[in-house]
């Protein structure tokens, strides 16, 4: 029963990550890529939390904290980079 729930959750998260990755690759403008990278990072934080649940290891939550902090910094830096690129891809 528990395994079935884990398969469902990882399937849903994985398909969300796959769709964000497709938008990251094909995105017509630079800002689309920045938005999908933000989505990608938040999904990866959830995946790390799910891995700490599966492997029963609390240390992975520390990795999720550090990854979240770096993802926030990356979003801000990427937003500053997008500001200077007028309409290019």
């Amino acid at each position, binding site marked *: *029963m*528990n395994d079935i*729930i884990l398969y*469902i*959750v*990882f*399937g*849903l*998260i994985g*398909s*969300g*990550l*796959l*769709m*964000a990755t*497709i*938008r990251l690759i094909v995105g017509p*403008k*630079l*800002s*689309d890529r*920045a*938005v*999908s990278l*933000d*989505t990608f990072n*938040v*999904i990866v*934080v*959830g995946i790390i*939390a*799910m891995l*700490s*649940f599966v492997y*029963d290891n*609390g240390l992975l*939550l*520390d990795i*999720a*904290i550090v990854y*979240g*902090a770096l993802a*926030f910094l990356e*979003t*801000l830096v*990427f*937003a*500053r980079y*997008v*500001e*200077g*690129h*007028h*309409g290019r891809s």
Partner: protein
Amino acid sequence: MDVVNVISAVFLVLGGLFYFLGGLGVLRMPDPFDRIQAGTKATTLGAFSILIGVGVSHPDWLLKVILIIVFIALSNPIGSSALAKATYKAEGAPDNIVTDEMKDLMGGEEHVE
């Protein structure tokens, strides 16, 4: 399976569903502002649900989980508003909007390609 596992499983499936909807919105929405809307709000709620599900099943990790939730609740709206402002400055407003208040805030000048 006792009641704690059932509550945890409900939160985990809900979080996975919101992550799926966030990815679907990022893939299918027509312009970058709609993609910001879909991809940031839905994934914020998905992260909350998954972290609450993990924290309910393991109560000794609850402090770290609350720390991550507070950090995501603070950082994700700041990131999305920075992205929206950068997108407006780089590409201008989309064609089908009704009002453009950001234009007044930025000194009344349209962006230049």
